[in-house]
């Protein structure tokens, strides 16, 4: 199966791991991720303003590209997924917005939200299936107590994102179980890390990140996983606690045994 893939700015730079492991693991699981040609940055945040059009056009282009290829549009970064999904939702449900967007775009392009937008985790759950992942695991992470950190972007707004129960999600926990580890459920896993406000107010980000880490640690987590480079940055940089935070794709790669093959890449990235 082939899917369209929107990597996003950070996955090409500071979070190359997130990208590389995602692709390698997908291959192992029988999915080819075809990177969208000439994709442009999603902008990182979705503006809720109804009159904000231009900043959403790059997402629409990616969505239209996937529509043309009749492929699911997959992203790994929470922020990209959030922006793409919300933009798609607006294209489906806000006729005025869709009209104005289409007026901006190339004359031969008409897009009204046909593309299915999926996060990589949803791909694992709904297309591959966690059971199949369990079968493919060669290196189960048995005994590891892992806390899933969703943050806000993956789940909210719930009516639009439709990924999971907003207040009691389980997709990452199921993922953690599938790779043989033990999930630690803690209440702060769907609270914000501080996001972009870290640039404006470090103290606020420190407070929010610490609240997440403290709660996770109290629940017994030895390690947190996330899908969002910004979450990881905030938790590690501002969380004030020495609790490792890794991308979920890293663990998937380790469990599927593709880590070694990519070791070189990893070093290259981090070096």
């Amino acid at each position, binding site marked *: 199966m082939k899917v369209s893939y929107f990597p996003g700015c950070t996955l090409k730079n500071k979070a190359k791991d997130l990208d590389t492991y995602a692709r390698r693991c997908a291959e192992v699981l029988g999915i080819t991720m075809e990177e969208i040609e000439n994709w442009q940055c999603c902008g990182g945040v979705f503006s809720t303003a109804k009159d904000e059009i231009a900043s959403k056009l790059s997402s629409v282009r990616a969505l239209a590209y996937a529509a043309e290829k009749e492929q699911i549009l997959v992203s790994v970064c929470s922020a990209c997924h959030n922006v793409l999904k919300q933009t798609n939702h607006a294209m489906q449900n806000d006729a005025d917005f869709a009209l104005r967007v289409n007026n901006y775009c190339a004359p031969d392009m008409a897009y009204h939200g046909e593309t299915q937008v999926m996060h990589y985790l949803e791909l694992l759950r709904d297309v591959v299936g966690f059971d199949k992942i369990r079968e493919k695991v060669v290196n189960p992470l048995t005994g590891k107590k892992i806390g899933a950190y969703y943050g806000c972007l993956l789940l909210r707004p719930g*009516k639009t994102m439709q990924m999971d*129960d907003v*207040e*009691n999600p389980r997709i990452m926990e199921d993922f953690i179980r599938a790779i043989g580890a033990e999930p630690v459920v803690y*209440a*702060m896993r769907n609270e914000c890390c501080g996001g972009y406000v870290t640039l404006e107010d470090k103290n606020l980000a420190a407070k929010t990140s610490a609240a997440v880490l403290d*709660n996770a640690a109290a629940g017994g987590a030895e390690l947190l996983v996330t899908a969002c480079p910004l979450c990881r940055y905030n938790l590690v940089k501002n969380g004030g606690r020495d609790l490792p935070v890794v991308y979920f794709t890293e663990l998937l790669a380790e469990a599927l045994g593709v880590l070694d093959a990519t070791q070189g890449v990893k070093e290259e990235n981090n070096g």
Partner: protein
Amino acid sequence: MQRIGVFVCWCGTNIAGTVDVVKVAQTLANEPGVVFSADYQYMCSQAGQDMIKEAVKKHKLTGLVICSCSPRMHEATFRKTAAAAGLNPYMVEIANIREQCSWVHKEMPIGTEKAIILGKAAVAKVNLNAPLTPGESPVTKRALVIGGGIAGIQTALDIADAGFPVDIVEKLPTIGGKMAQLDKTFPTLDCAACILTPKMVDAGQHEKIRIFSYSEVTDIGGFVGNFHVTIKKKARYVREDLCTGCGLCTEKCPQKKVPNEFNLGMDTRRAIYIPFAQAVPKIAAIDEDYCTMLKTGKCGVCAKVCTAGAIDYKQQDEYITVDYGAIVAATGYNPISMDKFDEFAYSQSKDVITSLEFERLTNAAGPTAGKLLRPSDGKHPHTIVFVQCVGSRCSGADKGKEYCSKICCMYTAKHAMLTRDKYPDTDVYVFYIDVRTPGKNFDEFYRRAVEEYGVHYIKGMVGKVTPDGDKLVVQASDLLAGKQMKIDADLVVLAAAIEPDKSARPLATLLTASMDTNDFFTEAHPKLRPVESPTAGVFLSGTCQGPKDIPETVSQAGAAASKVIGLLAKDKLMGNPCVAHSDEMMCNGCSSCEKVCPYGAITYADKEYRMPDRTTKVRRVAVVNEAVCQGCGCCTVACPSGAMDLKGFASAQIMAEVDAICK
């Protein structure tokens, strides 16, 4: 051709002041069919009525037009007059020349002209009137109450005390309902069991009451006075006639791990069980989902220990059909699921509980024998936070309910007060949006919780509950102080919204009773007929009609009972003769009428007809049940072939009125 008499009333000067009554009488005398016309000062007086009776005899009148006040005033009077004169009462039409003519117009010529036209319309209608006889149907003198909570019990007791037999159908093995699970009741704090269980015993022992416990209604046919109801008595694998309720089996059963629904799953029971000590009827039942014998055929302990020989593993569901004159829905409520409100961490922590669970935790017969202990570790909680309006007053159907659940403010005040009374070392916080306490002694009760018991009421909502170690961090707004606060709580109690029991909707379908979008039963009139369903013979008791507390439930139960008694006291039901009826030769059985009928009065029958070519043909035709039809006439307009018409307001009659008015 009718022989019509026209009687024009002066009503003193009320009519005669602006209407030339003599001219009206004279003009109408020339209308087709009119053979007699007269005017008189007060038509409704004895002398006026005698004058009508005499004229009927003398002029052999077949129809009457009374030009007088509104039919809402004296139509019944003149119908009686007609009957006394030997006429069919439905051969009378009223021309309203007072409220709708003399009282609204000032000038004599204008009033007179209009009165004449109104009179002509009435004459035109009477010309097409036909005698109508109200249908009669016998009344089965037995009532059915569906649901055995306090609403159903009270309704049944009141009906039975009036001398009519009543059956209660309860889906659980015992009656008692939610009230049996409560600890104390507001605002007087008497213990629920102390006031409920005597009523349960009364109901169980009343010679006029039969209780079908562990039973469900599966089919309802018939109509007011004549319902045929099928009741499924679920197999309880214990013979009701033999079980003595000794309870030995429930102690010896080896399957101990069954969640105890009476304690909301906070402890366990056996696979054979009696829900609680005061159950009525006190008969055990086997839970087939957990019984090893029923599942694998290996065990049989209960049968061995039962000295009465009451255990019967081969028992089957039994269906019985009973006839009733009236049916009362009393299906009650449940707290909504907390699945969609996990910001309060209900699924994440055992120490986040609903208010009903709190009732069980404080109840002497509950899982902790009445000691307030945390479900997680059995420790005494020192800080308790109550959250109001969880799932109530929500907009949008995806989450919660739009309505106020009405009882939460009061039971939370009760919980807070009782906690502070029993455990003065606890800190109790109540987060509220509004405190709603309309009711006798209700606000005083709430104020007592604050002023005498020192409960902290904080205006604001809780945003997030975070289990952290053995604490629950409650993050909330204090709107009056303008701050966000965090409380380290030991126990969080959620005032979950209440919703109608899931069984209500299928029951409404069986009853053809209407429901609102929240699945509460709709009343026939929201103010004036609050305990009747729009479907004749179906009555409403308790929370199946809307959220209400125990005093309200009991009063409504009594009101529903009195309506039932009023119905059952009649030997025959006289219908409204102005009902729909279908011309079978014109009907093509399309079902249009059936779909718009709010009462389910229209059914279809396959009937044999002789056709003009002497063959017989079976045709599907609409049949109106005259006892159920209320005569709105909606079906007559829906009927595409014009087969459906309304007696007393026939299309031809209304068109005749239209023609008369339009000259």
